[in-house]
């Protein structure tokens, strides 16, 4: 299959994810699920083609990793749908998949990517897989935190002074309820993603000790990954303490910034040329 054909499929998948987001938002759940599932299948086809064409799990180039990341969002949502019954989260997960698919669609990439000897390790798949799962969960959790923090701003800028007292109260209660959902959702997601992020980080360290002779070489990507892990760890600590609790969402948002810096920023600024992460 040519790259052009794959790009067409990726484009349709991206549109599918966005359409599903809108449908979730306007409460057309059934059709939203179908659209989301269709987009996910298309996404899976691209991952499958990458896998078959290369002969290894497609986790090497940024194109391969991002395509797989798009697949992770709906998968991780399923946990919250069936176990926690948090159906309201669906729109955020499909939106994140759509954004990732858009990134893959506009990126210049080739299907075939030769696996260099250093990446032919048993740690390679667990390292990337754990990271992709945790990044997909943490990205959505941080989006919840952003929306949570934005709620008071919404009230300030879209005040509806004409409504009667009772109407306002109902609205306030609804807003508080939504904020509580977002708060709890962010916590649940980070709680599940944190062990995966820990695995990703430290499987990488164990692998580095076998391939590059050092557990930790203070490489720029490693440092930002450590900062990301530390921010989410601080978030979890802040939630426990009464007086630090109010700062928790700041650390979730900082975690997202550090995550983007690790995942995209370092290569975007061309800083990984001398690093073991040069292939990304």
């Amino acid at each position: 299959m040519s790259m052009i054909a794959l790009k067409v499929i990726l484009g349709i998948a991206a549109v599918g994810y966005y359409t599903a987001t809108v449908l979730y938002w306007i409460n057309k759940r059934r059709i939203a699920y179908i659209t989301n599932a269709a987009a996910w299948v298309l996404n899976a086809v691209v991952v499958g083609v990458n896998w078959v064409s290369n002969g290894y799990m497609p986790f090497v180039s940024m194109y391969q990793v991002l395509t797989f990341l798009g697949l992770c969002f709906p998968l991780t949502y399923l946990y919250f749908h069936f176990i926690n019954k948090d159906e309201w989260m669906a729109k955020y997960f499909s939106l994140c998949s759509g954004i990732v698919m858009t990134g893959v669609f506009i990126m210049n990439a080739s299907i075939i990517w030769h696996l260099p000897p250093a990446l032919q390790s048993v740690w390679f798949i667990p390292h990337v897989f754990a990271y992709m799962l945790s990044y997909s969960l943490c990205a959505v959790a941080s989006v919840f935190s952003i929306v949570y923090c934005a709620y008071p701003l919404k009230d300030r800028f879209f005040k509806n002074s004409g409504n009667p007292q009772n109407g306002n109260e109902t609205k306030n209660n609804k807003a508080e309820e939504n904020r509580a959902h977002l708060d709890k959702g962010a916590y649940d997601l980070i709680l599940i993603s944190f062990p995966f992020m820990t695995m990703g980080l430290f499987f990488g360290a164990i692998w580095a000790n076998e391939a590059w002779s050092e557990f930790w070489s203070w490489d720029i990507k490693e440092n930002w990954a450590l900062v990301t892990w530390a921010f989410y760890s601080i978030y979890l600590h802040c939630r426990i303490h009464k007086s630090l609790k109010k700062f928790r969402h700041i650390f979730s948002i900082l975690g997202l910034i550090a995550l983007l810096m690790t995942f995209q920023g370092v290569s975007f600024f061309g800083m990984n040329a001398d690093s073991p992460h040069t292939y990304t």
Partner: protein
Amino acid sequence: MKFLFKISVIFMMAVTAFIMVLATMQFWRGKEDFENPAVIWALVAVLFCFAMTMVFSLFMRKFDVRKIGFYMLHAGVVLALAGSMLYHVNGVKRLESHMIGEEHMNNPSRAEIRSVMKKSILGNKNQNVETDNIYTFDLIVKSFKVEKYETIYDLYEIEKDAQNPDAEPEYRRVMADVESINGHYDFGKYGRFNAEGLPKEDGKRVDISDEVCIVSRSPDKHYEAQLDIYDNYSSAKTSKTLMVNHPQRVNGWKIFLMSFTTSNDENDEKVPESVVLIFKYDPGEYITLAGWWFIIIGSVIACIFKIGNIGDKATNAAKRKIKKAGNST
């Protein structure tokens, strides 16, 4: 207790901020700061204090078996830092180039090669290279084998400066990693070429026209070195195969295969000339490794216990209260 917790979290924020500043500085200064002894010792001091807060947090609370995840995670951080410290103080790591063939590792003339390799690969100009033999074994790289992927090509457009024809032209990569399909390489509008007519060797250039050229690449798929190792104590000889990701252990040292260099033979083809090895003595390796595993297992256990409570404690408590109130009336 709560105060200590608060202090340790604030300290954790400070450590994170410190590492973030260093990571941000890397955008401008590369790894320069991490090679500066002042920064290294500042980092060691900060991490030591961080480890101490972990130790305090471990001993300041009552033992509770349900908190096993917490204990493992925090003890893991302490172990990993202790192991790394042991290596930092007492470990040795040397990067060396070894000619393929019968050259012994402890040959004094190799000192010069070591020095060159240190300068060019580590880029650590101020470091004095130790030439004395610190190893407890001798080593010969008997042979070296490289396996390559099928040749791929990158296509470049040559942009010449019209106003200055003598200036070096600029090369802009238009197509990358063009693979052979059914024995042909398809360069789109630039043409389709039979694989037989194109060079297979690495780094060969073919000019398609005055404005376009293609360059061949054959990425490494696998390489391995066959080593003969002589023990200095027992004079016993052992043969080992060294591969990337599969280091070998000899008398407490770990040998890593990093890369290789090539030279042109009489047919102008590139052949492996020397291998680049790392020799590492790390007395804290197993402690660090235990620390990493403690952190991984600890985080899983700690979060699984919390995940069991995911239904939001406050909501559950409120529900229980309502139920209780209903029962009592």
